[in-house]
């Protein structure tokens, strides 16, 4: 997962799980097979945009802390 600055396994899983739950990460992958790295960055940017975070495409500390906040279980991208 090259987009991760710190490479912590826990961070990786938090990010992956969050994007899977709320940003359709899995379904899109199955769909049209872009490279994992680009897709991950695209999804992270979507999430950072909605949360008003700096749009870096990277799982920086602010993004991870937003991901750890209690939230609604409805996806952020599909109706």
């Amino acid at each position, binding site marked *: 997962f090259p987009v991760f600055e710190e490479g912590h396994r826990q961070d990786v899983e938090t990010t992956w799980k969050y994007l899977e*739950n*709320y940003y359709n990460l899995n379904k899109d992958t199955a769909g049209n097979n872009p490279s994992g790295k680009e897709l991950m960055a695209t999804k992270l940017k979507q999430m950072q*945009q*909605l*949360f*008003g975070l*700096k749009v870096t495409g990277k799982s920086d500390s602010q993004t991870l802390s*937003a991901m*750890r*906040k*209690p*939230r*609604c*279980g*409805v996806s*952020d991208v599909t*109706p």
Partner: protein
Amino acid sequence: QAITYDNPRWTKTDLTYSILNYTPYLSRAVVEESFEKAFQVWSSVTPLTFTRVYDEDGDIVLAFYRGDHDDNNPFDGPNYGLAHAFQPGPGIGGDVHFDLDERWTDTSENFNLFYVATHELGHSLGLTHSSDIGALMFPSYTWYTDDFVLNQEDINRIQALYGPSPNPIQPTGATTPQPCESGLNFDAITTFRGEVMFFKGRFYIRVNRFMAEPELNLIGILWPNLPGKLDAAYEASIIDEVRFFKGDKVWAVRTRSVLSGFPVDIHSYFGFPTSVTHIDAAVCEEETGKTYFFVDDMYWRYDEYRRSMDPGYPKLITEDFPGVGNKVDDVFQKDGYFYFFHESNQYRFNLQTRVVDASRDSNTWFNC
């Protein structure tokens, strides 16, 4: 049901709801009251009505589940996923599921059931998430005070689906401050460990050298026990404390915690006469440890080292701070200046020459 994929809404306005079960953390009455209040938030801004039914499933069924509960959206135990809901439609459509493992409350403590229910009902009525951090439909849990007001963005979006409320007086919602909007005024401003924080409603706008953009966020994210709509704030940097004022109360915080014993009243803490019922603005001059309190057209001076008011006060603001006017909304110190704010203007008062040497719009700190 006539439901379109990208614009799901109910085609009838008289909706029903039923409650399938309860949380062990709250009495049945509190749960029912929380849900009733949540429905009222939406019925007050639309033509929709919500009637509770008992012997059958309502259009909207509210229920508490633990873990996997066969809807392809398992709950995950305490924290994180709190609840979810389904778009308008038959069967499970419109239903709201709450995580049974959460500690549900009816206070400002996590997690307030009314607030989460109101958010999820937004989904039940067809709304998606919002990127406005002040909106009810923002994805994260942002509840922290009990004077809940629906955000104008939420009202606009639900009325785009169902039209306005039949009430002759249309309710208006709270708005999230936009740092670069002109005419912006603030409730309070203070420095905070080298940064400057501007407070408005339940929000703060934070600027520091390392961030090109100002950060807009909810006060409650840093200090859950502080109220919104503050009156004044100042930093007593000699003891690494920031003090917030609202009415005749003062809170003291250090980093992210409100110090124990606060709030206290400003009369016993600072020695104000009882005739002083609020503080408009306050600033501590770092070099002298003297704190200036501005109240209406007068100001007091308090010595942080002696922890008592200096004699000979109050005095008229206009006497000693010429050029800032006779009323101050906010003030903070940066370098050798006091920056006074009144309505949407700010005045830079030179502490050496004791004159205003510049005035400009209030939002010049935000790189607009």
